[in-house]
């Protein structure tokens, strides 16, 4: 392990773009290290949403009036922005959803209910977020399909041999996280997709913790579905994306009925619009989609290569700084890791630590991180988690380290 002094984080300085970072919490400078939960928003995103409501607001795909057409153009352009961002082959492979959770539920309830039969298998990993577990459990109850779970090592890496052994001709779907929200482990999703396809299974990748931290190319990964949320990508809450390969998406039945998703409606029979409109029943989150596109423009303006380099250097610094404090146990030490540091402090429960850190202006997450099976795997009730974003600096890590020291002093550990 490098000593902190040896690590020079190369440098993004974007805090001025994020107005909330200038506020104080409990009279202290805010060290926001809860980016795995949600990221802060740059002024460019806030202003885009504001400007939409000030100048462009109308419903889409239905008005003959100018404003409706204008709003429709902005919404459709947002879809193209998302398509290019993840290098999808076609804009109509992009479905706007409320977030990652809804995107995964959409696949489960549309594709899954149509395709799965009793005895079919869905393979996930032990490091999944609840949102990539529970939708499949619901689907299994509905269809008689069986959920299989590939284990993770003590370091928090997927056990590839066990994964291979669990991948059989019965496996219809492999649903894996790109980056673990609780541990930061990065899964080799392209390699796993190749193995799954060779076994005849489709692949869904949960990209909620990936898209803000590394360039994602869905064609290079080769996956059939990719899901992510806007709000973890410096965009608004309530907007997310499901990418699905065109032939698969076009064949999927609707999962919610309503306006905008139909071609014709009569009381005897209705017919469905093509994808992606078929999966966007009702008035969508128009301002959210446009705000998400602004977030993507902002991220691409900085450059994901720069963001990834900055966060990796900062993670190394944090690992060296926090990992060498007395009484610290790091949870999740995978070789390939994104900017998440999960840890335990001897004699201090994560919730007590969270309260004490908060008093110092340090925002972290304490708990099971919506990954209760993973916490059980490590026989711990939860962890404290610092999760990094492009605007974090060494100063944030230093404040975290000092605050942990204060907690240890208070607890006499």
């Amino acid at each position: 392990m490098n000593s902190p002094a040896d690590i020079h984080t190369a440098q993004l300085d974007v805090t001025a773009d994020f107005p909330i970072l200038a506020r104080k919490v409990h009279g202290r400078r805010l060290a926001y290290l809860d980016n795995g939960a949600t990221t802060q928003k740059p002024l460019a995103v806030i202003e885009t949403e504001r400007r939409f409501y000030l100048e462009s607001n109308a419903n889409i795909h239905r008005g003959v009036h100018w404003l409706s057409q204008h709003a429709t153009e902005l919404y459709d352009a947002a879809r193209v922005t998302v398509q290019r961002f993840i290098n999808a082959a076609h804009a109509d492979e992009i479905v706007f959803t409320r977030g990652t959770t809804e995107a995964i539920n959409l696949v489960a309830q549309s594709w899954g209910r149509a395709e799965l039969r009793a005895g079919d298998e869905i393979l996930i990993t032990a490091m999944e977020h609840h949102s990539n577990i529970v939708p499949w459990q619901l689907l299994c109850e509905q269809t008689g399909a069986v959920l299989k779970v590939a284990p993770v090592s003590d370091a928090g890496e997927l056990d590839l041999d066990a994964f291979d052994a669990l991948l059989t001709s019965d496996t219809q779907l492999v649903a894996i996280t790109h980056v673990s929200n609780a541990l930061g482990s990065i899964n080799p999703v392209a390699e796993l997709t190749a193995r799954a396809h060779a076994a005849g299974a489709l692949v869904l990748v949960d990209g909620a913790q990936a898209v803000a931290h590394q360039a994602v190319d869905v064609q290079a990964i080769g996956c059939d579905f990719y899901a992510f949320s806007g709000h973890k990508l410096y965009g608004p809450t309530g907007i997310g994306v499901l990418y699905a390969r065109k032939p698969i998406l076009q064949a999927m039945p609707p999962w919610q009925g309503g306006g905008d998703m139909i071609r014709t409606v009569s009381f005897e029979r209705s017919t469905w619009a093509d994808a992606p409109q078929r999966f966007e029943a009702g008035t969508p989150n128009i301002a959210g989609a446009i705000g998400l596109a602004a977030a993507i423009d902002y991220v691409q303006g900085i450059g994901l290569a720069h963001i990834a380099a900055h966060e990796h250097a900062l993670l190394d610094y944090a690992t060296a700084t926090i990992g060498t404090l007395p009484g610290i146990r790091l949870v999740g030490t995978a070789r390939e890791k994104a900017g998440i540091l999960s840890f335990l402090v001897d004699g201090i429960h994560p919730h007590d630590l969270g309260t004490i850190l908060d008093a110092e202006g340090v925002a972290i997450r304490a708990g099971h991180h919506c990954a209760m099976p993973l916490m059980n795997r490590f026989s711990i009730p939860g962890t404290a988690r610092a999760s990094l974003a492009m605007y974090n600096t060494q100063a944030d890590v230093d404040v975290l380290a000092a605050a942990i020291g204060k907690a240890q002093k208070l607890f006499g550990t």
Partner: protein
Amino acid sequence: MNDSAPDLRELYQEVIFDHNRQPRNFHAMADADHQADGHNPLCGDQLTVYLRIEDGVVKDVSFVGHGCAISTASASLMTEAVKGKPVAEVEALFHDFHALLTDAPPDRDFGKLAVLSGVREFPARVKCATLAWHTLHNAIVGAQEPARTE
């Protein structure tokens, strides 16, 4: 919401550290005639409260489980506070203790339980301090579902 710096010493008093490090009545009870589980799924706090009630009086009480310092100390202090008390008095104390942490503190002597009054300034932690009490209540009334405070 008050944004001034909270006084951690108000929350984490010595008595709380003492009961966190060495919880009293911290064991299972073989001859319990009442017991209940408590679980805060979001925190992961989990405990079981055991009771032996004779002639409407709490003859013995104990708990096992794991949680943060506030929830462990609160459970420990609770066992000391209710042992030997009539059940009706225990239920009244639960009511008043809850009020102590949330709204107007009732005019009564809380004894050692008063050290938990600092939780008032930390709304996110009230559920930690009350889990044991909700579980105790469930044990008394014979509820089947685990107690929750979130």
